[in-house]
């Protein structure tokens, strides 16, 4: 990276220091604006209402945990967390299983219509969810499936599948054919090859997918809003919109609610950053 400048060339050195300063300043500005909104939520959730009314931007003079206690005691709040976790687990499971089966066929078998199916599935990645909501809602209500977990899990799995199939397939095709052939010689059937060779080898991709999908389900609003209407069945995101109306005069309490939804994702990010980046980049480009 560093090409040495002639020593004693003070003008060039100064200029270099100046440009380095500007670059550093730009990055500091980026870092500040990236973190500030999160800082704002966290800091205000430890304030009393009086302290919040005085200043929203200063640090709290006294740190109170009262808001968190109250928000956890709010009706159904913990239930919303549990619902979200359940939906995420179900959707990710269905996605991974059906996704690897499909990706295996698309990546490792030759059949009529393979290319067409592949293109079709990829193009679904960008179909806006709102387009499907009305017919799905009508259908689900006719079968009495609104306000049920399986309905939402299957819709979530549908939303996650195109991306997952794309990602898994692009990994499956990188595995050398010789490896699969020797497994076949050793007596593996086609399902055995998937289960014993492809799936164990693609653990990192599976994990990246797990992270991206969990994140997606956690943050999802529209589908949960439409299909989980009973208060005790809401996800944490829909629950938060409910808190918004209920505690609009007690903002620090509201902020505490937001913090509890934000912090788990930040923790996930800190521990799984590598996988998240890999999943996102590979999801748009081939690795």
């Amino acid at each position, binding site marked *: 990276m560093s090409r040495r400048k002639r020593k004693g060339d003070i003008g060039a050195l100064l200029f270099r220091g100046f440009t380095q300063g500007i670059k550093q300043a730009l*990055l500091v500005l980026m870092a500040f604006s990236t973190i500030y909104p*999160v800082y704002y939520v966290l800091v205000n959730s430890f304030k009393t209402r009086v302290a919040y009314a005085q200043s929203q931007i200063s640090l709290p003079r006294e740190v109170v945990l009262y808001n968190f206690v109250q928000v956890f005691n709010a009706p159904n709040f913990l239930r919303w967390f549990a619902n979200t976790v359940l939906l995420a687990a179900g959707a990710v499971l269905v996605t991974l299983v059906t996704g690897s089966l499909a990706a295996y066929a698309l990546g490792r078998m030759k059949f009529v219509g393979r290319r067409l199916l592949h293109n079709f599935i990829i193009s679904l990645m960008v179909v*806006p969810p709102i387009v499907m909501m009305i017919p799905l809602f009508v259908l689900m209500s006719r079968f009495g499936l609104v306000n049920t977990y399986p309905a939402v899990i299957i819709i979530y799995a549908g939303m996650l599948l195109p991306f997952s199939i794309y990602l898994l397939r692009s990994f499956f095709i990188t595995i050398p054919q010789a490896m699969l052939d020797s497994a076949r010689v050793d007596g593996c059937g086609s399902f055995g090859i998937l289960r014993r060779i492809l799936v164990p080898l693609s653990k990192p991709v599976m994990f990246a997918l797990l992270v991206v999908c969990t994140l997606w389900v*956690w943050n999802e609003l529209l589908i949960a809003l439409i299909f989980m209407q009973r208060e005790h069945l809401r996800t944490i995101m829909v629950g938060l919109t409910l808190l918004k109306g209920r505690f609009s005069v007690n903002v620090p309490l509201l902020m505490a609610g*937001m913090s509890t939804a934000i912090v788990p994702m930040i923790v996930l990010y800190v521990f799984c950053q590598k996988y998240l980046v890999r999943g996102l980049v590979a999801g748009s480009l081939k690795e």
Partner: protein
Amino acid sequence: MSSGSAGNKSSRNRAAVKIEPYLYMLPALFILGFIYLYPVVQVVHFSFLDLRSWPGDFIGLENFRIVLKDPRFYQSMLHNFELLLTIPVMVVIALIIAVLLHEEVWGWKFYRSLLLIPYVVPIVAIGIAMSHFFKLHGGLNQLLELIGLKSFQRQWLGHPTWSLFSVAVIIIWREIGFGTVLFLARLGSMPPEILEAARIDGAGWWRRLWCIVVPELTTVIEFFVIINIIAMLSQIFPYVFVMTGGGPGYSTWVSELYIYKQAFQFNKMGASAVVAVVLLIITITFIVLSFRFREKLSEQYE
């Protein structure tokens, strides 16, 4: 699996080979058909029905007439298109940050680790928090006072002139990290000699950015732009829903909110389906485009 075994297999086995791939595809195709195909066909059907009572009477183009007479429809679509202006802003900022991080400016690892924080933070949580931040007596105006810019204080979300702008700021804040990460990955796969040679030939920072980095990254930038066009036109519901709910007035209504409110609050499924069809047609255009760029992009990574 295709070329695996020699020709002494029985004909039963060969038949099994042919049907097998479809069996593996079946569960996924079932879900995709149920979640995408059926609803897409059905929503087109719905747009011609009077759905106040099930199963609905055929009323021809009546729903289209209602929507085309509704000023809220035009306003919503207009706001979607206005949000497209966030894209050039995101591209420029993301490019600059990506290049700085690629140059390994002091502390780059730390800065890089921050990039995706907005992306993992739930839109709902940050949106609700920001709706308080943007209030007249909210954090932003307090910050402005602190740094002596009191004259810039205003009703960020409460005034129709600024509400969409404020929502756009949060959209940019959250979506930009993805672009930076994408650009950074592409820069990493670029041969370092290219930049080094330009530097030795005396090309300055901006020149290198414009004449080397941007052309090298054209495909990934195009891809990011297409993806975001689709997002701005059809995937920003949570932002407006939690930050403004569409208000004040109709100043932050977008097509998705129109569809949602018509269908689930005003019980006007037909009008809602019409706008869904419009949105579908618009996005199909961009799906075709995004597809072309994805293929181009994959070739570059071979």
